């Protein structure tokens, strides 16, 4: 199965969006995980009212989605979407579980409606008037592979283009000890069946034997720090514009290859 990458969106510490991050991802610049990149992004498509109510994971996912879709040349509303997140918003699980451990058991209605795993997809639908199918899935540390495969399968099923969004954010203490996601990361890809002048790369599912690690040790640390960041080797290959085979680890332990080439 193959597809064309029409645009990429990104948010991680020191990598505030795709265009600013290109020089780091293609190896021209060393990665510096500046704290400045950790201020929550403010996705513009989301009405200010909803922006105030949306949790961090939603702001991140929508920022990355917006970053990608705006440069894809495809109307946001026309894109079916796949949202992949291992743990979505654990700060809400923390607040609700804390409240339920007290005698009053007062659960905030806003927390509850934001607690669904598909909250980011729901807010994206509202913000972008995206009425096509939206699937939110989780496969723990293999979430990026599962979401990539679902996106390819949508294209094979006849969709012309698909929005793929990967995101996870650090949980608060005490959950952090049980699920140490160290930094917030969101990545978005707009994939299409046909190439266009805007296409950044061609990608094809292939066999691979080993999981690709990143030569820059600080970037490699980021890759390991968040399930959404496991897709970074693919982003680096796209940024370099070179032909290469990227190996990504599925939750089963199997390595799934993505062959990246010029469009």
């Amino acid at each position, binding site marked *: 199965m193959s597809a064309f990458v029409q645009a990429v969106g990104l948010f991680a510490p020191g990598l505030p969006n795709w265009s600013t991050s290109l020089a780091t991802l293609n190896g021209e610049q060393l990665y510096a995980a500046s704290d400045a990149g950790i201020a929550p992004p403010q996705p513009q498509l989301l009405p200010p009212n909803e922006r105030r109510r949306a949790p961090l994971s939603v702001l991140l996912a929508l920022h990355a989605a917006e970053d990608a879709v705006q440069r894809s040349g495809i109307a946001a509303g026309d894109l079916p979407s796949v949202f992949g997140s291992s743990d979505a918003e654990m700060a809400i699980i923390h607040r609700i*579980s804390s409240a*339920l451990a007290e005698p009053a058991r007062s659960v905030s209605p806003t927390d509850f409606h934001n*607690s669904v795993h598909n909250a980011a997809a*729901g807010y994206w639908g*509202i913000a972008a008037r995206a009425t096509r199918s939206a699937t939110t899935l989780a496969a723990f540390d293999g979430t990026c592979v599962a979401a990539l495969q679902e996106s390819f399968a949508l294209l094979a099923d006849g969709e012309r283009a698909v929005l793929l969004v990967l995101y996870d954010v650090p949980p608060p203490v005490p959950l952090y000890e*049980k699920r140490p996601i160290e930094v917030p990361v969101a990545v978005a890809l707009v994939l299409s069946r046909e190439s266009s002048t805007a296409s950044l790369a061609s990608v094809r599912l292939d066999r691979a034997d080993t999981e690709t690690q990143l030569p820059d040790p600080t970037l490699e640390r980021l890759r390991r720090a968040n399930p959404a960041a496991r897709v970074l080797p693919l982003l680096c290959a796209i940024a370099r514009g070179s032909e290469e085979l990227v190996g990504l680890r599925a939750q089963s332990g199997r390595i799934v290859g993505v062959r990246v080439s010029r469009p």
Partner: protein
Amino acid sequence: MSGSPLAISAWTATSALGRGRDAHARALFDERTGLAPTRFETCTLECWIGVAGSLDRPLSGELAAWDCRNNRLAQLGLEQDGFTAQVARAAERYGAERIGVFMGTSTSGIHSAELAYRERDRAANRLPADFDHGRTSCTWSIAGFVQASLKLRGESIAISTACSSSAKVFASARRAIQAGLCDAAVVGGVDSLCLTTLHGFHSLQLVSRDICRPADTRRNGISIGEAAGFALLERADAELALLGDGESSDAHHMSAPEPNGRGAGEAMTRALARAGLQAADIDYVNLHGTATPANDAAEDRAICSVLGESTPVSSTKGWTGHTLGAAGILEAVISLLCVEHGFVPRSLNTLSPDPSLRANLVRDSRRARIGRVMSNSFGFGGSNCSLVLGRP
């Protein structure tokens, strides 16, 4: 459907109606609800709930590390109707690594986190040492558990789109099989009672104190239930098949349906188109039918605009309660029972149907030749999925 319909070669459900297909069929024939005004765990909210079982037997042996209430319910479900044995035979045919697992859930093992927080060391702010987030609490845990229990070695994915979750697994699994990512798929869903959903839906004023009354003039909310259900999808000849699936998004509100039913109607229209069927080909619709004022009104508009006012429709949530992320698979199993037994269930607990709802609500259960059923599932975040199931 692009390619021939996928066979549903094994299927089962466990809910407040009992364990396995026969228990569900009997409860439907006998008009016996599984809902009761009882209490779950330490919850003191006054409402009716659908309890699938005491689930007090811990998982043991190789599965012990996965032990939590949600996975116990899953295991109980997998043991019914010879499901595990049929998957084992499929694994011999295809190879265990060629069978995907696609599980729908809204809260998965969240009850484990609730208990861990209750038992946490408050001074040190630490959760109990034996709390295993990955295998007993996180969203994926149910998919990983089902894969481990069935001894499969392909990919395991949890789809979590609130109350449409275990309908959407059919669509994702179909695409994965047709794209060659796997040769067969175990689809299904498990959601178990927990304090988060009981108190959460209560905080949104969506839980009825009364038993839920879908499409009734006095309907005022849901009754929450729990269920586990599974189906084996493969390319094969079979009496029952997934004929079509359709998905859409409301893009309207996080926790309220689009009032005109546009998004719901789009999912239904897409499911019909994928099945290559017309409205008149649908013999019965198993409604999402939650018994909230907003859902039932919006779904009625969608039904009338896509199928018209004559197709028989009913909600079976008066029997099972709203099993949330497991509703899609539970109602798919009920739909298949309707086809297998030639039966249309009435909308239980509906005393005086809302006159503003125009669809043809089934008031009296009856025998009928049923070839194709549409099953609707809609969730928070505006996530809609319709399935068409029945004889190919």
